[in-house]
């Protein structure tokens, strides 16, 4: 068994004292590509945000490679939902990618040539180099998603959290994201993706977590991605045809 990259213990998160995540225990081994699936309101994004310390949990703890998140920030990159920011913000593609380097710079220090070079390389990886000086509102939804991906890549982390990166993107972007996921797996990075499209889970991922306020199941896709767990998670008699 691999090392444990992320360990979540008894995590409970509440909005206005109404629990949205209830007593989650989760161990994510190093080097897996994991999908988090569940219906709307299941707390998928909340789980990621609580792990990253963006939300304060009501109870429980999170460890990244055995230490609290606050001590391991540099090991973690985050791709928020595209819709969580205002794309009319006055800035360019390269500038958004460069924000990924801010974490390693810390307070006050400014990005320099080294950070700029890394950001350009990340833009190239997602096929967006020719758009580097484009104002972000003038990018398509898929291109915006790729910018977010480049911003995570530039962090050069060990663990990547992505919140619905496939949401409403074009074919080019979908292929780019998949290729990058594969590339990350080759480098033994751990990738955790909030995912909506159940059909593609077996194709894209090797590990899966079923979530609906409580954790239903977690494990290798080939072992646990079945109708039984889907029904438990989605409440109705759920059937997906999994192509062999």
């Amino acid at each position, binding site marked *: 068994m691999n090392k444990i990259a992320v360990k979540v213990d008894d995590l409970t998160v509440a909005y206005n004292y109404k629990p949205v995540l209830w007593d989650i225990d989760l161990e994510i081994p190093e080097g897996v590509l994991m999908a988090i699936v569940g219906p709307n309101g299941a707390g998928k994004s909340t789980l990621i945000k609580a792990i990253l310390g963006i939300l304060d949990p009501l109870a429980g703890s999170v460890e990244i490679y055995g230490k609290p998140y606050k001590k391991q920030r540099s090991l973690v990159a985050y791709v928020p939902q595209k819709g969580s920011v205002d794309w009319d913000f006055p*800035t360019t593609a390269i500038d958004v990618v460069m924000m990924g380097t801010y*974490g390693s710079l810390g307070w006050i220090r400014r990005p320099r040539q080294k950070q700029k070079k890394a950001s350009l390389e990340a833009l190239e990886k997602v096929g967006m180099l020719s758009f580097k000086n484009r104002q972000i509102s003038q990018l398509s939804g898929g291109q915006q998603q790729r910018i977010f991906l480049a911003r995570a890549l530039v962090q050069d982390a060990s663990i990547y959290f992505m919140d619905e990166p496939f949401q409403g993107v074009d*074919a080019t972007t979908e292929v780019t994201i998949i290729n990058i996921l594969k590339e990350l797996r080759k480098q033994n990075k751990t990738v955790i993706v909030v995912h909506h499209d159940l059909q593609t889970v077996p194709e894209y991922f090797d590990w899966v977590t079923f979530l609906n306020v409580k954790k239903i199941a977690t494990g290798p896709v080939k072992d646990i991605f079945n109708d039984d767990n889907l029904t438990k998670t989605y409440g109705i008699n759920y059937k997906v045809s999994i192509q062999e």
Partner: protein
Amino acid sequence: MNSAQIEIQLIASLVAIACAIPGTFLVLRKMAMISDAISHSILPGIVIGFFITHDLNSPILILFATLTGVITVVLVERIQKTGLVKEDTAIGLVFPALFSIGVILIAKNANDVHLDVDAVLLGELAFAPFDRLILNGSDMGPKSLWIIGTVLLITIGLLVAFFKELKVSTFDIGLASALGFSPAVLHYGLMSVSSITTVVAFDAVGAILVVALMIAPAATAYLLTNDLKKMLTLAILIGVFSAISGYWLAHWIDASIAGSITTMLGLVFLLVYLFAPMKGLISVIFKERQQRIEVSLLTFLLHLRNHSEIEERHVNHLNEHINWQKVRSKTVLDLALKNNMITIDKEVVSLTEKGDEFTSRAINYIITNEDSQIEGMKDDFFLFRG
């Protein structure tokens, strides 16, 4: 110009700069109304500070009033967090309450305190040069110039030091938090700067008009640029321009300086709103019109390609066949002719080679939605621009 006039313009300009900096971030964070709330609710802080110190320029008064400003923000957030009311409602509940406490305090003590509501609301820049800073018997200039200058220096220092942090937490609060740049620290930092700026500016331009100096230059600059640094610079320039031109407007029509500055801010905004090259109203209307014609052109070219029959391509029948009005058909025909995309031979329209190629590429783009296609087209043709 005499020295008092120069001093007044200098003070007004420094106030404008000091307001434009936090104002830019407030506008981008969609918190413009918070500056309105702060500007009103610092009144009780000012009054209480004034009762203690009897000096409108005392640091203790500034401290008290700044604190009231930050308390306002905290109260608004507390009420909003209950989930019972929305943010704008929470703002509307908090600041009138605090403001009215200030008004009552002034009214009850108006006899023995030299502070009236008018002065607080509107300020009086013209009196600023009378209150002078005397050090060791020598005149160092107006007190308010020194106070505003100090606050401005602090603001610029903080902006330069934390520009990157402010940018990331304004654009993407989740990322800022994940990277370890506490959004709460930055938020309250910005709120404190906004409060202290409002407090020192109120003396010059009054509690209400300070809102205009915070929001209008930033909102105007937002329409002119797509770069945060340029937006800050433009906001500062617009603020200073309005401050100085407003002063001379007041001089000319013999009216309130603060009122004239705000009028200039409004005028500048109106002009930019109408004529800004990319985001201005006229430019947007023009672009929409252009796009409509361009899409019509493509529809027309498609029709030509799909129909080889003569009757379908006869000029007089085109209106019926693609169901357009005469004017529109004429515009589109002219446009296509001008770009050598069609030829008209005995009233029958045919596609040229160029027109045919263009149509194929446009269709190809629409079907594949590939970026590289459109990039090439943007260069040599106007369709799909913007």
